[in-house]
């Protein structure tokens, strides 16, 4: 037989093509680094500067009232309590309403025109800038009821509502229809089926989705600027008098040129970051735990 192919050389070759491939791979890797750098820088600043004031004067930082701007010393107690109370109230409003809305969309509305409209508008609502929500609540609530923590809670609830609706609907979709049929076939009403069979089956997903919405709300500033006012002392009522929160405080202190205030700003930033990270991690753990059980 004639020799058709000269000695078969399959060694990797250096050509322009392979070089280009390597360059692109490096560039793509550089993109990852480019993303990591700011994250690392921000985290380092937050933990280093915030950590120093938080741990230097532990637990004063967490409990004392906020000193006046120029004064030195720790104190973010009112802001921490404010964030917890305002975000907590927003959660109490937004999660039940959001889950009920999702129940309507999946269990009752289906593909009806009204349900499609609500789904569409919920998606639109997720894109509304948080500052618009804040001003909206200012106009309909604060002008009538004065500056108070509850107004901030309402504004945050408006932000959370479409997020909870979307996430909950996705979880309801995952519940196998056979379970619903079994319940109906035993003579259960729709309400009972949803409450005793469907919701428990979807619960882990709904909880973790809601926790993510809470983490998002806790970090929001703009909706609070117009609705809660500002104060340096602890306010345990959501309905009387000005309130404060970590996010709003960070914003104020960031604008100051005074080092003491800035220092407290970093401390507040650390507290806020720890709060949102914890909520996120708990949400992920719940999801992982639930999928492992199945």
């Amino acid at each position, binding site marked *: 037989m004639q020799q058709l192919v000269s000695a078969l050389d399959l060694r990797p070759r250096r050509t322009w093509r392979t070089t280009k491939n390597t360059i692109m791979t490096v560039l793509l890797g550089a993109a990852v680094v480019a993303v990591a750098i700011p994250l690392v820088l921000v985290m380092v600043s937050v933990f280093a500067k915030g950590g120093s004031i938080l741990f230097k004067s532990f637990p004063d930082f967490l409990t004392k009232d906020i000193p006046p701007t120029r004064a030195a010393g720790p104190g973010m107690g009112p802001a921490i309590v404010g964030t917890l109370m305002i975000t907590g109230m927003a959660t109490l409003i937004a999660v039940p309403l959001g889950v009920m809305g999702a129940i309507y969309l999946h269990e009752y509305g289906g593909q009806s025109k009204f349900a499609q409209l609500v789904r569409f508008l919920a998606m639109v609502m997720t894109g509304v800038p948080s500052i618009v929500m804040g001003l909206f609540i200012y106009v309909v609530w604060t002008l009538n009821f004065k500056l108070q923590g509850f107004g901030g809670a309402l504004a945050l609830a408006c932000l959370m509502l479409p997020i909870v609706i979307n996430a909950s609907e996705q979880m309801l979709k995952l519940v196998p229809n*056979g379970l619903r049929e079994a319940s109906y076939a*035993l*003579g259960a009403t729709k309400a009972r089926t949803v409450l005793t069979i469907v919701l428990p089956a979807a619960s882990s997903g709904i909880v973790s989705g809601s926790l993510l919405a809470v983490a998002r709300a806790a970090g929001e500033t703009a909706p609070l600027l117009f609705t809660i006012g500002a104060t340096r002392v602890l306010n345990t009522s959501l309905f009387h008098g000005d309130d404060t929160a970590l996010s709003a405080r960070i914003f104020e202190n960031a604008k100051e040129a005074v080092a003491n205030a800035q220092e407290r700003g970093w401390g507040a930033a650390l507290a806020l970051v720890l709060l949102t990270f914890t909520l996120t991690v708990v949400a992920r753990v719940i999801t992982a735990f639930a999928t492992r059980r199945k």
Partner: protein
Amino acid sequence: MVVDSAKPFPTSEPPATPTRTAKPNVPEMRPSMLEALMTAPTVYEISNLDVFYGAYKAVRGVNMTIRKNQITAFIGPSGCGKTTVLRCLNRMNDLIAGARIEGKVVYHGVDLYGPDVSATEVRRRIGMVFQKPNPFPKSIYDNIAYGPRINGVRDRKKLDEIVEKSLRGAALWDEVKDRLKSSALGMSGGQQQRLCIARTIAVEPEVVLMDEPCSALDPIATARIEELMRELKQKYTIVIVTHNMQQAARTSDCTAFYTAELDKTGQRFGQLVEYDVTAKIFSNPSDTRTENYITGRFG
């Protein structure tokens, strides 16, 4: 197997049997048994039943009588309306958007689709077991107790009794009596299906509808469920949809054969072809379509 050294390879010989497959074996029916079957009290009287999905008439002109403490089997090829008709018997078709019926489904003299009738009430008296076992992601105990709890039974002792009675009735008690609190999802497919049967009979329905209950199960689990059905029919009236002709021949008293036809516009619809005592359907059917199906010529 002994190998014949003189004839190590089988020689081909013409088969002595007829060219079509034999019909499934059905026990001989004595005249007295036949009479008992035909005079049992009526449970369902179905007349001129048409089922619509939106504008599409999916099932046309079903007429049949279902009688007490018998097993009635719906057989026929796929897509000819067996499950659709079954689901009309407990108004489960209401759950499908756009589904409606014309004609009558009369249960003990009451029109199930009448204006004053609540579908939820209907389903409390007529139970259903599904093709794919669907236990709730709860404990075995809570699965069975679900139905009674809906009906207002709160007393712990009473619930314990009901759970034991239902599990015994489904031939599952001995296997699970020590782990009633464990999750129902940890059981095998056959056990889960028996659990679903136990769950259904826990509310003491009169009728148990079964939609291909064995099609997702292995042969051993299937045999156990067929055995269970024979016991259950003493207390309940059973209507079963099955793809397995032999199963119908083995277990049922009456059989209804459905098929799919094309109407004048070329649309496919389901139709009841023949409904009779099982012995007759399988030994001497009146309609050629039935004969073709049971001898395996099609379907």
